[in-house]
């Protein structure tokens, strides 16, 4: 670490240091003991990397340019190099932007030194490697080439120079120019590709020996001339000098000093707010519907922890949403803690107690709760249904959907939408461009996808409407969920307590219903369509369902009449009365046996007898009594009371039976489970010993004993096995010789526990652990004298 940097840092005033640690909080966790400590931490690769990650495109370009310019850097030169890389439209503001950016970089302690010759802080150079997408300098590229190879290249590109002077040659733009003009157009195209792109590539057999006049392919032409150098057996890189020539002396291109604007159509704010609120309402309802459905018909938790594709499809069908949207609903409900996986092996996805608390809140608060959790979750619901890099399907609700960057990108994207100004619906491309400018080190196709997910999900959840961040969405994005709920409230439809009943057996609720009415209607009618309103259809089966739930036909009609703005239409009235009339006309129950007698008086007598109480009789008809006892018990009981019953078969025939040949009526008892073969006593004892030994080792961590010295025992195989068997039976200790996995002869002291399938399980005192030993690798056994 450079002393000057620490001294420079020490020279900053307190305010500046405070600003520094505020901007780079990782420098003070934990608080360093002194400024040297602070400096030491600031220059670590991880701390520098995190500071760099926060830089925008322009600040990063300034820093890269500083790194690449020969030290000490000259402000004028710095500006000139940057100016060459600017996009034309941005050329005017360079001066101000540069001085502002340098001040900011100093504040972050990424640049230090005198004002007129700024220096990159220690560690920055390494962290920025390779800077500006440039490859390593020629000296680095060709350092590891063999002298013969260097000689060949030198010979091909600059006859007359000393061997190994390739870097020197490439340092001369004139030489590079000559070389570049002499290669074929295909090779030139490859060079141009590498000039701004990643400067390194993969190439099989990169270190091949090629000469300029025998080159077979464009790449070989480049390799032969040193325009491309091998940096490994299968990697090649474009030397920095060559790239700089190809870039025409520029380090960057299309550089902007200020963030690119967010473009998009403008829309009426009231309309977008309303649209977003409508979507918010739908989303909250979808969450509720999903939870309600899963309350009764919960899907199983996959072994990997997620939701099966089949279950997702079913949920999508119920919610009438596309699958991605259904996955979002489930994910958000999960993030908000409304659904959780019940424990156990056959776990299920069930609503949590938190759901019950959530359900009774007003709509806007429910929305704020789910939307806030969507914003905060570190999961990427958009990935559900896609495949990971190993081509495995990513299920919704799996732990696999966690993405570290998800939350940050989501916050950043919403910040972009907020920055776009009221009423502007920025198009996704300009949001991505803007994010790429603000966090250039974090850009990438993957992040762009997260941005797209965020935009799509924000619309779905009702944070945005028609692409514009709604008022409540803006409050949410700024972290104020209470304010978001307050803004959303007036936009949501009021719950109503009446429906319109129609003669075609439908009921229309022209808005969200109050909870109680909704539950009652959902019970008595099937939901036909949902949205701003709900359409219910009454049918025979739905009415029957309500009657099954314990309501009577009159109650149902009274409820409908009470909540209907108009009289109950006649067809509905008829339907309810009709179903109620037939409902329950046939009764079904279970009985163990029955008593039948043509003379009701006898049955009266039986029923009046107090001794029949344990037989649990119930008179079904004048001539029939049902009993919950089994037939045989009933016959016995009645006999004991002095009657003379006969048993009847299912067909009504009399069963002639002898008293001592009774048979059970119930189901046969379950057969006891027996293991085929069974365990022999020795094995059981050994298993217990092994468990004890393992347990003791775990608790006491018996120190390993020294393996005994001297000659490793050798014995014939049969003797070995019988000695081990004896040790297992008697519980003794043995000394064995064992060839380990590497074929090394070792010696162990064992307490053998079990032997099966060619393996011995034993507590190994020399290793203080239970191991399995292959019998064929045990070279011999001998007894151990106690006390070891």
């Amino acid at each position, binding site marked *: 670490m450079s002393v000057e940097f620490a001294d420079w840092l020490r020279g900053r005033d307190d305010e500046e240091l405070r600003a520094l640690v505020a901007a780079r909080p990782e420098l003070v966790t934990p608080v360093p003991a002194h400024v040297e400590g602070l400096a030491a931490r600031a220059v670590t690769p991880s701390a520098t990397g995190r500071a760099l990650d926060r830089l925008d495109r322009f600040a990063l370009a300034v820093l890269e340019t500083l790194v690449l310019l020969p030290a000490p850097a000259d402000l004028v030169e710095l500006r000139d190099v940057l100016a060459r890389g600017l996009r034309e439209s941005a050329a005017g503001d360079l001066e101000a932007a540069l001085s502002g950016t340098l001040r900011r970089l100093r504040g972050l302690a990424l640049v230090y030194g005198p004002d007129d010759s700024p220096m990159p802080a220690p560690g920055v150079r390494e962290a920025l490697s390779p800077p500006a997408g440039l490859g390593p300098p020629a000296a680095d590229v060709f350092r590891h080439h063999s002298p013969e190879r260097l000689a060949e290249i030198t010979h091909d590109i600059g006859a007359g120079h000393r061997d190994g002077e390739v870097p020197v040659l490439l340092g001369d733009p004139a030489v590079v120019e000559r070389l570049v003009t002499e290669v074929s157009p295909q090779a030139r195209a490859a060079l141009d590709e590498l000039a701004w792109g990643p400067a390194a590539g993969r190439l099989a057999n990169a270190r091949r020996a090629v000469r300029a006049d025998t080159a077979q392919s464009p790449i070989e032409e480049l390799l032969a001339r040193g325009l491309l150098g091998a940096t490994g057996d299968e990697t090649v890189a474009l030397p920095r000098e060559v790239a700089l020539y190809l870039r025409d002396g520029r380090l960057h291109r299309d550089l902007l000093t200020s963030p690119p604007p967010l473009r998009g159509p403008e829309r009426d704010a009231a309309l977008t707010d*309303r*649209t977003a609120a409508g979507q918010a309402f739908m989303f909250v309802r979808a969450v509720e519907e999903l939870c309600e459905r899963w309350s009764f018909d919960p899907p199983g938790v996959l072994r990997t922890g997620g939701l099966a594709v089949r279950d997702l499809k079913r949920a999508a069908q119920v919610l009438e949403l596309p699958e991605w949207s259904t996955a979002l609903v489930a994910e958000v409900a999960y993030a908000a803690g409304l659904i959780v996986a019940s424990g156990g092996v056959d776990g299920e996805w069930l609503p949590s107690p938190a759901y019950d608390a959530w359900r009774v809140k007003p709509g806007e608060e429910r929305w704020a709760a789910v939307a806030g959790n969507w914003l905060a979750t570190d999961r990427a619901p958009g990935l559900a249904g896609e495949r990971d890099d190993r081509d495995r399907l990513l299920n919704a609700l799996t732990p696999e959907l966690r993405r570290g960057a998800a939350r940050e990108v989501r916050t950043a994207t919403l910040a972009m939408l907020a920055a776009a100004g009221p009423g502007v619906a920025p198009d996704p491309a300009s949001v991505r461009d803007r994010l790429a400018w603000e966090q250039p080190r974090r850009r990438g196709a993957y992040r762009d996808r997260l941005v797209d997910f965020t935009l799509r999900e924000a619309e779905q959840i009702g944070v945005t*409407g*028609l692409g514009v961040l709604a008022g409540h969405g803006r409050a949410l994005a700024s972290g104020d969920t209470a304010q978001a709920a307050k803004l959303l409230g007036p936009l949501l439809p009021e719950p109503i307590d009446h429906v319109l009943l*129609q*003669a075609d057996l439908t009921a229309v609720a022209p808005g969200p219903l109050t909870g109680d009415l909704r539950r009652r209607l959902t019970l008595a009618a099937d939901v036909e369509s949902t*949205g*701003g309103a709900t359409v219910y259809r009454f049918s025979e089966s739905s009415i029957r369902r309500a009657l099954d739930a314990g309501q009577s036909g009159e109650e149902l009609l009274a409820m409908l009449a009470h909540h209907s703005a108009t009289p109950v239409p006649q*067809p509905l009235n008829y339907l309810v009365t009709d179903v109620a009339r037939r409902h329950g006309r046939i009764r079904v129950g279970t009985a163990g046996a029955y008593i039948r007698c043509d003379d009701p008086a006898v049955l009266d007598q039986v029923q009046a007898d107090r001794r029949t109480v344990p037989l649990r009789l119930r008179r079904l008809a004048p001539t029939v009594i049902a009993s919950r006892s089994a037939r045989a018990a009933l016959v016995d009981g009645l006999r004991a009371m002095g009657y003379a019953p006969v048993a009847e078969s299912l067909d009504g025939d009399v069963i002639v039976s002898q008293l001592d040949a009774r048979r059970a009526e119930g189901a046969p008892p379950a057969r006891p489970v027996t293991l085929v073969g069974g365990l022999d006593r020795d094995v059981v004892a050994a298993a217990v010993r092994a468990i004890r030994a393992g347990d003791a080792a775990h608790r006491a961590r018996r120190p390993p004993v020294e393996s005994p010295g001297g000659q490793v025992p050798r014995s014939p195989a049969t003797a070995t096995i019988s000695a081990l068997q004896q040790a297992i039976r008697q519980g003794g200790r043995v000394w064995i010789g064992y060839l380990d996995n590497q074929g090394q002869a070792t010696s162990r002291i064992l307490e053998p526990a079990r032997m099966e399938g060619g393996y011995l399980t034993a507590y190994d005192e020399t290793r203080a652990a239970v191991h399995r030993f292959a019998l064929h690798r045990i070279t011999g056994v001998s007894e151990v004298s106690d006390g070891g």
Partner: protein
Amino acid sequence: MNDGPLIVQSDKTLLLEVDHPAADACRKAIAPFAELERAPEHVHTYRVTPLALWNARAAGHDAEQVVDALIAHSRYPVPHALLVDVAETMARYGRLRLEKHPVHGLALSTSDRAVLEEVLRSKKIAPLLGPRIDGDSVAVHPSERGTLKQALLKLGWPAEDLAGYVDGEAHPIKLNEDGWQVRQYQREAADSFWHGGSGVVVLPCGAGKTIVGATAMAHAQATTLILVTNTVSAHQWKQELLRRTSLTESEIGEYTGTRKEIRPVTIATYQVMTTRRQGVYRHLELFDARDWGLVVYDEVHLLPAPIFRMTADLQARRRLGLTATLVREDGREGDVFSLIGPKRYDSPWKEMENQGWIAPADCVEVRVTLSDDERLAYAMAEADERYRFCASTPAKTRVAEALVRRHTDEQVLVIGQYIDQLDELGDHLGAPVIKGETRIRERERLFQAFRDKELRVLVVSKVANFSIDLPEASIAIQVSGTFGSRQEEAQRLGRVLRPKAGGGGARFYSVVSRDTVDQDFAAHRQRFLAEQGYAYQIVDADDVLREDRPSADS
């Protein structure tokens, strides 16, 4: 929150609260792009289907208008996904166009090459197309014009047919407005059909669809082929045309089972057209017999499949479909759209009734209870015999008799499905029975006698379901039907909907056996009418009989 009369549902149905002050304005705004699905008393349901959106697009509406109409009238915010979907669906229509091509005759061209590439890759489309003309167009075999449109619709890229029509053989036809006038809606319907080129006009039974046909013919001034459901209906068309237009007997030909006349205006039945001998449609040549300038399809919702196939070859001729309902029991609404054309005119039944164009009607469902013996027999009947059994219970005959007695001053039609039941009814009521085996001449004699009020009661089987013009019938008693057919119920109600000379209302009785499949089927049959705003009142057969007895005794 807006206070509009419209609620947009997530399944793309629109609920219109009819008692809302702005309901009328809203109905007008959404009618072009939403299909009226149900019109019960308080809340009407419209559905935004791709077909409806394309119909709107064909009528010159754009997505912006649709979205504006939804947002302007909706009480709650409209789901964004629905708006996006509307815009996307509408944008699909007209991306592909069928146009005339100077060299290849007919070409499929596009403004969006990707769409063309997409449909060209379809295995179903490729064989219908000729060589690629340039990047944006491809030749079409003129004979595949209809099949191509059908296939494109299935792919979700309906083509706009701009290839025009042949004029056909000119033939002067004039409306003969002598003592009557074409009603305004009839003229509107004919005009909007004519401007659209081809398409379907949806009007309730009794609203004078024949006149719409005649008006369209007067527009076309060309030879016309009219396809109707049966012979009686063919006769009626002929009578009507003779009365309403300048056409004379010698200009109108009938092409039916008994007569095969081909004249400038020819009326053929679906049955004849679909007769096959040895697997060959023998009367196909009728389509080419003359250079028809207009083809009229009566009762489009009944168009049999072979006629669809034949129509696919007639795409260069103007086609007018007439129907009371686009509901098809077989779900081939898409084929009607692509082969006959988009819907050009539609008017809800109740509205026509309010304007006095069709008679106001009451629908009454009379529930009879099976006797205990019958219930036992019903429970033991084979599944496929059950409907017949409960639908033709003698109890219904008693109720029908009572009802006939109740309306002594009115013309009564008794309609049923089963011949033995009808014969029995005929015996009891002392009324003639018209059934499949009744000779055409006899049928017409009976119908005429009924029209002239010489006959008060007529018992008819399903042969009289369609297109029988019996203006003075004001009571219909349905004792059995073709299971749960919704359109049959609508057609039967249509029999009594013609405006009455006395201006009185009509009444439609449906006699149903309680607690049987008859009741289930009846519920299904009634759905269409209930959805059109005809509330069924339910009465008990015992009430009908009790009411009847004192008067019968006195």
